[in-house]
């Protein structure tokens, strides 16, 4: 029952505003594909166009061998889960779940059996006769998922499904969705601005920015081989160091960062270095830096370093490697796996690294 979704040249304009521009990707059958991007990147609009809730200005959507673009929402048979649940407030949980079968004039006995089956799947059998208002956020979203799955959709579209939930519930639900997906194997598209969520759940990630696709790849590729400065800065935390390309290296004062052979000599470049790629060494490292602040994150520490040129560098260092280094000490560090790009103006925004990457 799993079907791939192919999106080709999808474009959406609202008046003169280009919400989505020429988006192309394939969501493989039976996999979870995440549409990842900051708010306003057009990812929800892409999802709503696939569902038929928005009409594309240009482009096409194909599901299996079915051209979806010309079909109405009603005919597309997609399951859609909304950020704010969108449960029918005047219906019980069971009626919510059975709605899709009811409007398709499914036999009553079949419908009731299917509702029971799905409530069991989402572990909400005892709540069948409750109303949505009597449920917690996490329970409501499970009802919404059961409702979307009830008519056996060919694809499942999830629009920030955990966005309205608190951190703990979000974690649980994420793990639960992962298991559920392994069990059902329905092609799923997940819209999220949470890179952790995308990395954990998705088989494939489509990174979007300002209405365009920045990169399509596996979570590993997106993280380790970012195709653009935006992806390098958005997926996972990164330090951004600006310098000049000299002989295939980025020169930044006395610091030499390798990996810029593909860039033109003399160009202004930015090197992205992940906090965990900043390694403390006992010998001579790439650079000597002064420890400004050490904050414990449990088993590792977040160390803010001041480089000789005055730049700040954030390192995530396992406590064992710190050897009691304190604030004000000078330490030697290596910069591993730097990703070098020509420096666009916008990448400087992400120089401040958030914790918990």
């Amino acid at each position, binding site marked *: 029952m799993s079907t791939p979704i192919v999106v080709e040249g999808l474009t959406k304009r609202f008046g003169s505003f280009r919400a989505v521009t020429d988006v192309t990707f394939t969501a493989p059958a039976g996999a979870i594909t995440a549409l990842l991007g900051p708010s306003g990147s057009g990812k929800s609009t892409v999802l709503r166009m696939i569902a038929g809730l928005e009409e594309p200005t240009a482009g096409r959507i194909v599901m299996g061998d079915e051209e979806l673009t010309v079909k109405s929402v009603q005919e597309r048979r997609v*399951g859609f889960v*909304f950020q*704010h649940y969108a449960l029918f407030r005047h219906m019980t949980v069971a009626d919510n779940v059975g709605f899709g079968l009811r*409007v398709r004039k499914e036999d009553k006995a079949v419908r009731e059996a299917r509702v029971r089956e799905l409530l069991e799947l989402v572990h909400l059998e005892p709540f069948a006769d409750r109303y949505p208002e009597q449920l917690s956020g996490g329970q409501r979203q499970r009802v919404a998922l059961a409702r979307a799955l009830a008519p056996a959709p060919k694809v499942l579209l999830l629009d920030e499904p955990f966005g309205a939930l608190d951190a703990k519930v979000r974690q649980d639900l994420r793990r639960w969705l992962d298991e559920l997906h392994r069990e059902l194997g329905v092609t799923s598209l997940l819209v999220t601005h949470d890179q952790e969520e995308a990395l954990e759940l998705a088989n494939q990630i489509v990174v979007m920015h300002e209405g365009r696709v920045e990169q399509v790849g596996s979570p590993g590729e997106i993280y380790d081989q970012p195709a653009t400065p935006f992806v390098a800065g958005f997926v996972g935390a990164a330090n951004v160091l600006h310098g000049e390309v000299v002989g295939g290296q980025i020169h930044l004062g006395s610091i030499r960062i390798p990996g810029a052979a593909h860039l033109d000599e003399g160009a202004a470049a930015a090197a992205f270095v992940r906090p965990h790629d900043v390694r403390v060494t006992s010998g001579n490292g790439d650079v000597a830096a002064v420890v400004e602040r050490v904050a414990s994150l449990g088993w590792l520490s977040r160390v803010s370093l001041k480089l000789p040129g005055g730049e700040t560098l954030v390192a995530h260092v396992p406590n064992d490697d710190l050897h009691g280094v304190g604030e004000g000490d000078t330490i030697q560090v290596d910069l591993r796996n730097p990703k070098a790009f020509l420096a666009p103006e916008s990448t400087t925004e992400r120089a401040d690294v958030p914790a918990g990457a």
Partner: protein
Amino acid sequence: MSVVATPKGRRRGWLLAACLVWVGVLLLVPLIGIVITALEPGVHVVTETVRAPDVIHALELTAVITVISVVVTALFGVVVAWVLVRQRFWGRALLNATVDLPFALSPVTVGLAALVLFGPGGWLAPFFESRGIQIIFALPSMILVTVFICVPFTIREVVPVLEEIGLDEEDASRTLGASVWQTFFRVTLPNIRWALAYGVALTTARAIGEIGAVLIVSGLLQGKTETATLFIFRAYEERQIPAADVVALLLAAVSVTLLVVIEFLRHRQERERSRT
């Protein structure tokens, strides 16, 4: 009560008393007056009055006008409310403002406007006259002006509820395979039902009580175009005070009943709105 003992409490006490007197004297005393004067001559006056052919006809006419007006304004009200909330189009603000026009206009003005259109020598009069359709001084014009006056009630009740509910549930319904109509009847309508009922109750009260516009377009044909309010109006003129009082009491009773129903509905609606 300890609150009354403090200066602030005392001030509040006075305020409360003033409100009670204001509402009591202004609103309740006249009502009590009607009850007393209507029942004073004895029960036989009441039974005689409600058996009089003129009265029966007047009450029936009011009922017909009210039912038609309520059905028409409720139906179109829901459509207009839906369009106002769900669609973005040029002139939306203008439409939104126009809906409230009947609140601002005096019913007498509305009646006169109908005369200009349908009255003798009116703009549209030739069209209907040539087809033998009597609009003015007949039921159609009376319904027309009542509908006009009642237009805003349903719309103004339904619009905020539709706005608050948002689009998500309707979108969800459509992705689940429901048609536009199924979505409206199974999702949208149940969500606005109390607002709609409240709008209908207000419309009913307003339609029953309407006199200004109807007075002008009816032509005051006794036993033909005389509604309950017009009967009261004529009965007073002709010094049939007891009959006027009895019909007035009847209308008051209907209004009070409606008021109770409206209050009940408003409670239901507020409860419904508080859950999300």
